[in-house]
Structure formats: structure tokens, C-alpha cells
């Protein structure tokens, strides 16, 4: 059973090398809209690099060579002439550990709104409350919105970072092992949130946790040494993998 799905992002023939060392080799992936796409693969296979290519954080690397295309909304973001900050605003990033901004809790959420030009305090207040509620943080912090974000626990900080990303109004959420620094309860909270968020957003999630992938993935991309070995809808991928490498990985033969 294959349903036709509209790709939100289309990656074609993407190659990336740093200092002449090939890191991504001929990647062709279509990321479906309003689904959770999980990138799986052993450590060092290029998952983080692929994720960072999507919002051009690879611009920060020295001596990097990229070829191929990443099409988002009919625009090749690798070769576009339009403002990269606008493109990045279409994608929220959730990293392995939270990096709150050195401001208050309120300041963290309103930051993205303010750089987009929202000035009215009333609108800011309302939006801050809205996004904090969306990530289930409102009840925990409503009394101390103007306290520094650094005082929150790591799990709360991660939810704050998610809310901060949502406040910018993205269409896509990129998450790089977002639960690896969290306790089981906070991880579960993030997972449940993703399942709700996929109604309105396209999610790309890197994870090491097979069980997590099984729980929430709609589409799976399995990478090995910079190449995509196998990809497909989650059910198919987990129940009847085609490639030997995939079978070995799913059995836990290598990590």
C-alpha cells in the first residue's frame, strides 16, 4: 500500500564534502508534508550534517563543498539568491541539548516575534502565552515569565526552545536527537508533542533510539557512511526491510 504524498522538501543528488572528505554521497530523499520523517543510522553517518544542510547551517563550515539541490516551495535553497534568514525562519531547529537565549523566559519566546517586527506588547503577551501552552510549559512558568531561562530544568528548557522555534512561525521542524539529554518523562512529553504538531508542521527527526522511531515515524530514511541505504514508509521499513544493512541495523548488529 503506497499513498501518494506531496513532498515538502525534495533533496536530489546532494553531495557534501568537508576538507575533500566526502560526508554525504548522492542523497535523494523526498520529505513528505505533515509527516514525521525519521533519519536513522549509526553514529557518524551524516544525519546531523544532512539536517544542517536543510537550513544551510553548513554555511558555518570551513572548506565545505556542496552540490545537488534541496527544493523547498519551488526554490532551491542551496543556490537561492533570496534572503537566507527568511528561509531559515521556515524551519525551526531543536538541537541535541537546549540552547536557550540569555534572556528571560518571556524574552526567549518574544525574540523571534520581535525580529519579525511584532512590537505591540499586547500581541507579544498573547503569543507568548499561546506558544508556551502549545508545548505544555505555561502552567509551570506562568508565575515567573520574567525570570532567566537558565533557571529552568533541561527538560523545560528543551520545551522552551521548541516554543521559541514555533513562535517564529515555521512550516518545518528539524530535530536532532531532541530527547537525548532528557529523562524518560520529558522525552515522552516531546514525543507526544511531535505527534500533535505533525498536523500543522512537517517534522524531520534524527534519533538513535529505535523504539522511539517505531513509535512516531511515518517515513524512515536509513543512512550508512554518508549514503541513504533504504527509505520508505515506517510500517514497511520496520516490518520488511529490503537491504541486508538495514536488517542488521534493526537487529542491533551495529550501532
Amino acid at each position, binding site marked *: 500500500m503506497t499513498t501518494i504524498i506531496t513532498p515538502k522538501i525534495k533533496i536530489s543528488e546532494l553531495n557534501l564534502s568537508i576538507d575533500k572528505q566526502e560526508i554525504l554521497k548522492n542523497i535523494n530523499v523526498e520529505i513528505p508534508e505533515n509527516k514525521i520523517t525519521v533519519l536513522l543510522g549509526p553514529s557518524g553517518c551524516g544525519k546531523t550534517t544532512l539536517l*544542517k544542510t536543510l*537550513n544551510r*547551517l553548513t*554555511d*558555518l*563550515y*570551513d572548506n565545505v563543498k556542496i552540490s545537488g539541490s534541496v527544493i523547498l516551495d519551488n526554490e532551491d535553497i542551496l543556490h537561492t539568491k533570496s534572503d537566507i*534568514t*527568511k528561509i*531559515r*525562519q521556515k*524551519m*525551526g*531547529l531543536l*538541537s*541535541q*541539548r537546549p*540552547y*536557550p*537565549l*540569555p*534572556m*528571560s523566559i518571556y*524574552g526567549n519566546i518574544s*525574540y*523571534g516575534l520581535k*525580529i*519579525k517586527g511584532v512590537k505591540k506588547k499586547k500581541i507579544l503577551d498573547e503569543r507568548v502565552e499561546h506558544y508556551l501552552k502549545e508545548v505544555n510549559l505555561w502552567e509551570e512558568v506562568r508565575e515567573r515569565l520574567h525570570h*532567566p*531561562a*537558565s533557571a529552568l530544568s533541561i527538560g523545560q528548557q528543551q520545551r522552551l*526552545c521548541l516554543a*521559541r*522555534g514555533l513562535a*517564529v512561525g515555521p512550516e518545518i521542524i*528539524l530535530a536532532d536527537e531532541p530527547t537525548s539529554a532528557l529523562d524518560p518523562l520529558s522525552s515522552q512529553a516531546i514525543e507526544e508533542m511531535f505527534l500533535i504538531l505533525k498536523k500543522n508542521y512537517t517534522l524531520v527527526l534524527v534519533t538513535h533510539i529505535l523504539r522511539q522511531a517505531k513509535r512516531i515515524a511515518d517515513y524512515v530514511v536509513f543512512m550508512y557512511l554518508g549514503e541513504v541505504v533504504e527509505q520508505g514508509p515506517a510500517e514497511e521499513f520496520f516490518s520488511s526491510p529490503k537491504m541486508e544493512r538495514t536488517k542488521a541495523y534493526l537487529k542491533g548488529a551495529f550501532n
Partner: protein
Amino acid sequence: MIKKAEEIFFRILMIISTVAIAAALLLIIFSILYNGLPALSWEMISQIPKGGFYFGKEGGILNAIIGSLYLSVCSTLIALLIGLPVAMYMNVFMIKHRNTLNSVRFILDILWGIPSIVYGAFGFVIMIYFGLKTSLLAGIITVSLFIIPIMVRSMDEVLKTVPSGLLESSLSLGSTKTEISFKIFLRQCIPGIVTAVLLSFGRAIGDAASVLFTTGYTDSIPESLSDPAATLPLAIFFQLSSPVEEVRQRAFASAAVLTFVILLISIAARILSARYNRNKIKF
């Protein structure tokens, strides 16, 4: 057994060096106060010298206090206005060009290491070239040149500690690099940046060699940028080399004033930076 002996050895070494440093510091402060307090009076800090700075036992060092403050505050401000953007540029915009960045750091380290008398001589050459006389302006320019590398490198060391994840997160929010510099990195690093400014200010107000040829020395309070100006370190130097015993004692009083000014500004800056410190994220 050997482990234990090793531990005891290093503990003793640590205690000895800590005590040595503290003792040296206390000794310096004590000798300044012991020799200077008898000569320190309201007159000393509220009047300009009478009868020349070399032989005069009357009057005070107000000329040098004012001159030093003008000189160091102005040059610290100039160095801050140039140094902060440069340090930000290095850590937000140039992050990708690691090799260039390393060369820039290396050059700044060399500039930091050049003795201030060389900057003084350089300033002197420039002055002659432009036909300037010894003046407050020439001194401010020279001292700025000499503290800019200090300012940039010490801010750079602080900005370097910001994790790349914070830069990546901020970029992902769609911030421009200028916004990241002045809205995020600046907030995260305020305490360190204040320390950098203080370090530079301390060097500016405490340096004698770079102002010797450029600012000159005078008994009066400068009224414009083109007037020469007295400075505290030079006041100490001239008073100490006087043949008159009372004048030599006044040198210690001047040193006490200089120490006190630095102390006052440090405390004020610490209080200011503590107010921003609470938002800093500990990574």
C-alpha cells in the same frame, strides 16, 4: 603511599604560592598607604601643584587626576567602540574562516606584547609628521592604539566560549549576524566584556611610558584636546625622583590615589555587570 606524598607536596606548593601572592599584594598596598597616608590630604586631591611638580611641597595633584581620567576614559571609550565590533566580527562573522581567524589572533597577540614605550615612540613619530604638539589628543590616540589589541583579544577570549550550538540556534530563528552579535552574544558575555574593558582601562590609566612623549606634563588642568596634560603615573615618577623628601612622600600619596581610582571603577563595573549576569546561560 607515593600518591599520598604527591598530594601533600602539591597541596603545600599551592598553599605557599597562594600565600606568596596575597602577601606581595598586601605588602604593596601597605607600603603605599604607610608612606602615602601622612602626605595625603584634601589639599592634595583638590588643588593643582604650587611651586612646580618637582620641588613643590604645596598644592596637590588635581591636574594629574583630571588628566589621567580624561586620558583613560576617552581612550577606553575609543578602544571599546572599535574593539567590541571587531571582537564580534571575529566570533560571529569570521567563524568559518578558521585560518584567517588564527592569523588575526596571532597578530593581535604580538601587538599586545609590544611594550608601551614603543607605542609612545610611534605616537611621537606620528605627532611630528602631522605637526602636533604634545597634547591630550596625541596621548588619547596613542593610548587607544595600545589598548585596542588588549581589548579585542580579551573580549575575543570570552566570546570564544559561546558554544556553537547557541550560534546555530540563533541563526535557525532567522536572526541576522548583527542581531546575534548585539542581542545574544553581548548579553551572554556581558560580565567578561566588562572585565575586558576594566583590564584595558587599568592599562590605560596606569601606563607612564606611552604618555611620556605624547601627552607631556604640566601643572595646569587641560582645557582642550590640544593642551598637554599631566597623568598620575608620571606624577608619581617625577615626585619620586625629586631631591626633596616631602615631595617623595607625596609620590606615595599619588600612588594611593591611583590605586583608589582603579578600585572605585572596578567595583562600579562589577556591580553593573552583576545586573546582567543573571540572564547568562551556563553551558
